[in-house]
């Protein structure tokens, strides 16, 4: 494995983890933009723009883009998050150059009005789809409630209303501000020909004009809000809770990841033994999510409506207990073993390494090997976890519950359902 990096005069960075023994190559454009960069009337524009990239360029129609990506046998897709928009393709090494050419081209989309109006229907279908499937938007709604006016409260998909109101002009303005080469990184992993990658990037992206791009990163607020959303047609009750946690830049993010595994991994965790193994909940889990200058521990509970209040009290008790008593050395050892094994297993595919390498670069401009990742988890001590517990409090959590309940009292009181 060899790490290579290069920067074009216009600021576009090209990085690669080259593994001559790999069978495939994965490459992607990582654009440092997402829902957190959308002001009020732009909600959902990053994700909509991601769709529009596949709807054609001055040189290619939408059908051309789809056809050419299939002709090279690629597994190509894109995703949008709070702070990244990523366009990627996994290909056999002989197709690296064509994949680079197609992906570079779609990063300068035509944004034609007809395509915009047709694709808007697909986005509205996608919004309707997520509103109609578990957990019925509980995660995004809880982020919105927790972060209030903070940019991390913005929904990635936007709503039916905000997306309906978007215009091609608004999207073009957003594109002009955010899709600047100095805000984009071309990342590759696997069997990569780095010299060719740089030459192709120069040819296809060298003329993209640079301009200063900014992002607001205010501190995360602290909240204890509670919202119950009545959805009488749901069979189960879905609850999401958010507490503040380590951010992307914080050294204690590894302790945060281990802590979330000990408390709320989907197997073998404290939540699991108390609620899932006993059949009291279908799911009770905790994950740590890191963003620029903010992070969260997100707890997810899904269970029968009648059990929701008691299960929430149970989660509260488990969190109070860990805050008071900490964790054991044996728990920490098992969590390390579990996470490190997952890191190594996932790294076997270049398409997975792509996201790890690109994510690290976008967040911290650093390259970390698989060994670095494993070592970072291995070196966390009980003391680090207890420092983490002193820094973040689970007494301040934001809660959103969606389901048939019309009343939900987490302090051990009765729940009522209609």
């Amino acid at each position, binding site marked *: 494995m060899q790490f290579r990096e290069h920067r074009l005069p216009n600021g576009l960075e090209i990085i690669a983890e080259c593994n001559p023994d790999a*069978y495939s190559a994965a490459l992607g454009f990582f654009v440092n933009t997402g829902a957190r960069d959308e002001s009020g009337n732009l909600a959902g524009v990053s994700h909509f723009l991601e769709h529009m990239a596949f709807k054609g360029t001055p040189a290619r129609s939408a059908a051309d883009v789809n056809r050419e990506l299939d002709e090279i046998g690629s597994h190509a897709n894109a995703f949008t998050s709070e702070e990244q928009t990523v366009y990627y393709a996994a290909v056999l090494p002989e197709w690296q150059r064509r994949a680079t050419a197609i992906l570079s081209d779609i990063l300068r989309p035509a944004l034609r009005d007809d395509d915009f109006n047709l694709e808007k229907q697909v986005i509205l279908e996608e919004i*309707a789809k997520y*509103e109609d499937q578990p957990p019925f938007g509980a995660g995004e709604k809880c982020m919105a409630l927790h972060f209030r006016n903070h940019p991390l409260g913005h929904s990635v998909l936007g709503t039916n209303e905000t997306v309906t109101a978007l215009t091609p002009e608004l999207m073009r303005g957003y594109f002009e501000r955010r899709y600047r080469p100095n805000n984009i990184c071309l990342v590759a992993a696997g069997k990569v020909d780095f010299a060719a990658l740089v030459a192709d990037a120069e040819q296809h992206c060298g003329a993209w004009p640079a301009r200063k791009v900014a992002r607001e990163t205010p501190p995360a607020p602290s909240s204890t809000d509670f919202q119950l959303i009545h959805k009488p047609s749901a*069979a189960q009750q879905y609850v999401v809770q958010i507490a503040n946690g380590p951010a992307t830049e914080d050294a204690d993010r590894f302790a945060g990841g281990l802590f979330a595994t000990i408390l709320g991994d989907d197997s073998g965790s404290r939540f699991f033994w108390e609620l899932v193994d006993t059949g009291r*909940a279908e799911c009770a889990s905790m994950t740590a999510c890191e963003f620029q200058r903010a992070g969260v521990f997100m707890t997810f509970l899904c269970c029968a409506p009648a059990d929701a209040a008691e299960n929430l009290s149970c989660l509260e008790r488990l969190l109070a207990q860990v805050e008071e008593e900490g964790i054991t050395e044996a728990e920490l050892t098992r*969590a390390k073993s579990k996470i490190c*094994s997952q890191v190594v297993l996932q790294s076997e595919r270049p398409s997975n390494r792509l996201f790890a390498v690109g994510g690290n670069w976008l967040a911290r401009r650093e390259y970390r090997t698989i060994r670095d990742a494993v070592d970072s988890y291995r070196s966390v001590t009980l003391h680090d976890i207890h420092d983490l517990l002193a820094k973040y409090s689970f007494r301040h959590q934001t809660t959103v519950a969606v389901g048939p309940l019309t009343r939900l009292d987490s302090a051990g009181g009765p729940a009522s359902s209609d």
Partner: protein
Amino acid sequence: MPWLESAAFTLLVPAGCSRDPERLAGLAGFTCEMAQRGAGPRDSRQFIEDLEMLGVDGSASVANAHTSLGGAMPAENLYEALAIYADVVRRPHLDECELEDSRLVCLQELRALEDDFAQKVMVELRRRRYPDPYGRSGQGTEEALHSIDLEQIRHYFQTFYRPRGAILGVAGKLDWPRLCAHVERLFGDWTSHPVPEILESRALGGYHHLPHSSSQTHIGVAYPSVPYAHDDYFQARGAVGILSDGMSSRLFTEIREKRGLCYSVYASCHSLHDRGSVVCYAGTTTERAQETLNVLLCELVRLSRGVEQDELDRLKARIKSILIMQQESSMSRSSSIAADWYFLHRVRTLQELGRIVDQLSCDTINRYLASNPPGDFTVVTLGDKPLETSLAVS
């Protein structure tokens, strides 16, 4: 696969939900849950903690023909993990004290399906497309899950957890002679006995609507196809690939790209041992559901008029990269070779699959489609109102 650091195994035990007695739907799943709650020298907690220490990313599921257990792990831990799973399938405690918690876990899974409409439609589609018990899914029914007792679980275990029909697929960085000797020690004295034959009923087929007040309508369509072991399987698979593999495939182009009718639409081959189907799904808002179904059925009927060379070239490029990328994952390879063994009693190498794909041509696929045109559709919808299926000849 010496280039990997991992190894993975897939253990198929011939204890699928097609073996559930009629009034005890869910028994296979219940037994699988119980088997993992203490086996050999380990109790329920020790079982999970030991797997965590070995870094095993494990899974267990119940399909129609098998209960499937498996996982991927750092290569050096394969042997110890196999020993743990040998206890699960041979020496589970099936202890009374785990019974009620297991029951609740199974009921939770069943209830989760109630909110997952896309899955619910596909479960109902398979149930109607195949004769019982081949269309069943493993979740069972609430009534049955409430009634199952420990004796029934023990009896099911003793009858169906057996070596005849069990398959162990292993892939990754491994030492073959050492693995064989190890498996011989773990499973060599496992004994079999005869099991009853499966009696099948008639398939329901036709159109069925599941009423549900929602802004979305979920559509499932199935039609008969050949099973994996059939000589023509790859002709059928090629035709479905042209319908659904990749962003330039027909369903994606006609339904999503040209008309913006929905976000998700797909078709895939589904195979049982001796019969197969093509199953299709589309999810859309209620007011666009009728048009979505019409276009979907039109595309299925149009398929019988043949496929084009450029479509096939793209499909071959995609399949070729899938085959090569399979070599990057021990888990993906171990489950494919276990499935191959079940359907074919041998394993197709990636080279052999490559040759089969090279030999596909428009002629061979079109000949197949001419004699096996999509038709006899089974249709299931879930949503606010039923749809018109005049095109669906059942």
